[in-house]
């Protein structure tokens, strides 16, 4: 069975490239360039993973959107990856209190842009694996 991913990012080129890369690996890819479009999409489908860009219309769009997604019953357990940034030189996260965000916005994984498609693929695979295990243990 193929897995479904939703990418939310305001960079059209990034979306086009991720679609091609993940489609080549058998994923069903949906993309949205805006917050409202993403919410519409997520009411229609329940993906296996959601990838969100942190900065879109506003500096914290990704976080706010993640919080909203978690309010949707069907999406409570769907893994969310937030694409964000660090300052390479200091290695310090600039604007995020990771632990607080994990609690409030239910974000499972953070990746720094510019992320490679392979890094993203590894993160997606491991999150899908984990959620499969979680649901298996719940059923047991």
């Amino acid at each position: 069975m193929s897995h479904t991913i939703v990418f939310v990012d305001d960079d059209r080129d990034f979306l086009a490239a991720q679609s091609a890369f993940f489609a080549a690996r058998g994923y069903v890819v949906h993309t949205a360039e805006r917050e409202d479009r993403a919410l519409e999409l997520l009411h229609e489908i329940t993906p296996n993973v959601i990838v969100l860009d942190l900065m879109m219309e506003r500096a914290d769009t990704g976080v706010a959107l993640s919080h909203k997604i978690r309010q949707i019953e069907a999406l409570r357990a769907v893994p969310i990856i937030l694409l964000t940034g660090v300052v390479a030189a200091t290695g310090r996260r600039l604007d995020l209190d990771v632990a607080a965000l994990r609690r409030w916005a239910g974000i499972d994984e953070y990746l720094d842009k510019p992320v490679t498609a392979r890094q993203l693929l590894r993160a997606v695979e491991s999150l899908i694996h984990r959620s499969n295990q979680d649901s298996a243990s719940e059923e047991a």
Partner: protein
Amino acid sequence: MTGTVLVIEDEYGVRTGIEQILRMEGFEVWSAACAREAIDHLKTKTFDVALIDYQLPDVDGLTLLHQIQQHDGLTKTCMITAYANIDMAIAATRQGVDFFLPKPFTPEDLVGVVNNLLKRRHVEIEAARLREAHEASLIALASEKSQTHSLVSCLRDAVLVVNAAGHVVLVNPSMARLLGSNAEQVVGQPVMDVLAAPAFGPLREQLETPEEKRGVFECEIDDRAHMVRVVVFRDEEGTARGSIVTLSDISEVRRLAVEKSRFLRTLVHELRSPLGAIRSLLEVVMDRSLGEEMNAYDSFLQRADARIENLVGMVGQLLTLSRVDEQRTTESCEPMAPAQVVEEVAKLYEDQARSRGITIRCTLSDGDERVRLDRDEWQTIVGNLIGNAVKYNKPNGMVEIVLQREQGWLRLDVRDTGIGMSSDGARRVFEEFYRERRAETRDTEGNGLGLSIVQRLVQRKGGSIDVSSVLGEGTSFCVRLPV
């Protein structure tokens, strides 16, 4: 001991006798037979001692005594009299005579009296000199103190001086403002009471810290950042006499630092997004995600190339921005015709405009008149404004450019009938990297630096730039430059 002595004696024998005795002792002696003659001498000479006969032919001795004292308060006086009557003695003493010499007297008596008086005069002169010197130094001290006081008073930095006992001895107006009280209320009070407000907590701690462990630190007072220094001051022996506390308001420095860091953060994001996109586009090609047929990757490679082109443009703009900030633009300032440049730039955008049915209309009432303006900078200003007016226009829209002279100012208006901006957008349009993210701007390339550059160029030239915009109807920019 030598000195000058004035002898006033109407009896010739007595007078010459006194003269002789004193001369023999080495004194310089002047003599007078009456008060009038004595006064004539006083006009030309200062005397150490005056010997006055009580009974003179013209005025009495007391009157003359008064006149001599008026003339030089330090001249020592001695009354010579055969009538040692008590009334005269009381009157003369009241008037301040220094000594009485009753007739008859021996030469030793006379010399002894004169020497004695001379000694007193020298002591008094020395005392007067010391007093004057002391007064002069007091005046100097007072003026130095007042200079220091004015200096400390007009310092923008807040200054507080504490003595060894921990009491406040000086507070300048800036410090008084921070303390929220006036200096008089504070001076003399224990410093820990004066600095009781929570905001001064770090400063109190510092005052209690041993000197060698003290340092410069920051503290927030009245919502403003202050740099605080506590320095111990010592006397000449090296004993600590107290502490000087200075607080410098560094809010502005802080604000600039925050602004710079915000700029860098935005810059990082602005670079990371296209880099991320380029990397993903190339990964698709390297991964052969779309199979082995290379034509399938054309659009990915073209997009990567376009994104790189944009980055190159942005790097160039950033360089311009930093040049403007450092005032390092090449100000050739050859006289040139601004209208001509506007025309040239408008022509550059004609094709782009025509392809979307946009009309560019120029009204250049400035003609060929030349002004001293940097050609490149003027080109940048005009290019950015016309470029934006075309870029953010609607199909079949209009760009109207008006250049005119307005009482020593060059005025350029660029109006478009484009997509317009929200009021927030119009307010922030000159911020670096600011772009309104809307569906209509999604496909328009831009980095949000052009108008920042324009604004800085205009402001650096002493000009102004204003914007007004109505969402969905269009935007107009008005630039005024002094010429």
